[in-house]
């Protein structure tokens, strides 16, 4: 809706993030187009998650510019609540609200932010739960769900505000292996529907199959990026080669 003229959803320029004297992101540049699916891979501690969290200002960038959906979020005057409505985020540990039922989790934001009256919000929330295959769990509390179910509810919750962009922060890392497939299936479905997605992941199979572009990060830098075929089969950077050798042969 608010996409910039040239169809760019996210434009990051010279992004630096410090924790005290520790420089975590060392001047990143990345552009993500509408409908594009970008997977970010790299070793632990490389700054992938921090980068993702800078995109909806869960982390304050130290310097550089981050423009999402046409809003300059590095500008303190920007109303972040407004911007965040257009950015869905899915966390590694789901972060469902344990005090609310599954349905209430999904409906909370639309109702609190007056995007829909209760009847419409309920209908939409049920449709979203159906979409992720959990319609029958609507009245359950998160504590009674499995990890994979929780994560699918979290995706439904993030979709409830009709975001233009979805951010996934290692969405399958905390799951038992047999649960991973269900969650990835939901994400694939989303990608097919044309959702703009940025996914921090260790699932190389998913990246190969779904991503339009793969970004390899290490030590706070983007080392290499390209389409999956090229990056996985012919990595140029020695760090990328080293990383892929380790994860693919594991």
């Amino acid at each position: 809706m608010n996409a910039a003229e040239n169809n760019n959803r996210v434009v990051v320029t010279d992004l630096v993030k410090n924790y005290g004297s520790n420089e975590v992101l060392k001047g990143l540049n990345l552009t993500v187009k509408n409908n594009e699916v970008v997977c970010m891979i790299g070793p632990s501690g490389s700054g992938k998650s921090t980068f993702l969290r800078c995109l909806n200002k869960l982390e304050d960038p130290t310097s550089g510019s981050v423009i999402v959906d046409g809003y300059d979020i590095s500008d303190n005057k920007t109303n972040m609540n407004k911007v965040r409505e257009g950015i869905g985020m899915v966390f590694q540990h789901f972060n469902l609200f344990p005090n609310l039922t599954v349905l209430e989790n999904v409906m909370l934001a639309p109702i609190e932010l007056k995007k829909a009256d209760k009847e419409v919000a309920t209908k939409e929330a049920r449709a979203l739960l159906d979409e992720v295959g959990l319609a029958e769990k609507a009245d359950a509390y998160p504590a009674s769900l499995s990890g994979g179910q929780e994560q699918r509810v979290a995706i439904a919750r993030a979709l409830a505000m009709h975001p233009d962009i979805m951010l996934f922060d290692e969405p399958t890392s905390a799951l038992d292996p047999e649960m991973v497939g269900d969650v990835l299936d939901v994400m694939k479905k989303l990608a097919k529907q044309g959702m703009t997605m940025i996914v921090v992941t260790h699932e190389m199979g998913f990246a190969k199959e779904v991503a339009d572009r793969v970004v390899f990060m290490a030590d706070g830098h983007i080392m290499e990026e390209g389409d999956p075929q090229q990056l996985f089969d012919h990595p140029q950077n020695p760090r990328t080669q080293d990383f892929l050798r380790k994860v693919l042969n594991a």
Partner: protein
Amino acid sequence: MRKKLIWFALLCSTVFGALLATTTTSHAAEKTYTIGTDITYAPFDFQGTDGKYTGIDIDLIKAIAKEENMKIDLKPVGFNAAVQAVEANQMDGVIAGMTITKERKQQFDFSDPYYYAGEVMAVAKGSKVKSFKDLRGKNVALKVGTQGAAYAKSIQKKYGFKITEFDQSNDMYNDVVTGNSVAAFEDYPVMAYGIQNGIKLKIVTKPAKGGNYGFAVKKGENPELLTKFNAGLKALKKNGQYDKIVAKYLGKSSVAKATATAKKQDNSLWGLVKQNTGALGGGLLQTLYLTVISIILATIFGVIIGLMQVVPAKWANWLSSTLIYIFRGMPLLVLALFIYIGVPNLTGNKISAFLAGIITLTLNEGAYTAAFVSGGIRAVDNGQMEAARSLGLPYGKAMRRVILPQGIKIMIPSFINQFIITLKDTSILSVIGILELTQTGKIIIARNLQGFKVWTIIAIMYIVIITLLTWLSKAVERRMNK
């Protein structure tokens, strides 16, 4: 958050409104003098079996007021509280068996003396101590701030004894009866009256180094009150009423009467409960009032301060930390005395003991509440706030819908704990003369000297209401957890 600020403002205005109300009524057109008296100083000030305060001081000031057409409001709050209240302009005068001394004259203006009392030493009935010489190396019990204490201290070096001081006469007597101390020093009429009424002590010295009792006002204040007191006293002495009053409590016939009543009295546990139903009920009610009002106000205050501790605003965090630091760090007893005695001294405005008590508990219990409220909120996983904010919820909404409902669950056991502590802490307010359950116990004991039994009754009453409060809280907890 805005709603809560409004609540806070309302609370402040209520408190200040009450403060102002207290001030204005005391400055009403026809002056009513507020006079403080002791409560545990028979035969001068004590509570009769009917629950009314009586004694030489009480009868005398009432007779003088009648004689001089003065309106007086007697406040039986205990010697220390009365003296400090006059110093703080909380009260106009004090009549409490108060000896006129040089030191006291620097703070107070005294009336003409209305009674002369010598100091005597009393020992346990079977004791071998006969004179001051036998005190060497032994322990002596004294009552804080009395002439007896001053006298004992003046000869302490010469006779080489140790000193333990008590707030209540009865505690001092009992310390001698139980043998912790070998002797007590007391004004002769008080000691004699106590022994008549069954204290197991005997007087072993002649009245000495006594002093004159005087009615006191704060230095430089209320000179007309002193004039009226002196004129009234003169008149009463002339028409014989003064002698009648003294004889009523210290005359021969009074001895027989006192002995007779003492014998007639049923001093079993149940008998004591029956005799004192009114007083105990009143004390219980006052304790419950204090508890309920304080719990409500402390919870509001504590939740606000606790939230200020976690909101992303530096000034609020700082203010909250400072308030918690001060009011949690100050002993409740000191805080109560500071608010009741100190604040009027600073602002010049009177404040009722009850209001001072409520403010004390609100600040102190509120500070503890704030600490566990902020702790409870912090205990909620960070990811919850992040998830709520990433949906576009503003901070306040995220707090209210997501964080607080989870935090409150964590806090509930602490709340129940704090309610019980608040209930118990009301007993400390007896120090500023509030007639709650503990103070009621002290007063009953001052009359009947049945310390062990009365404290047993009071203890059982506390246990019962604490049990009820616990049940109530647990029932609420169960409902909230559903």
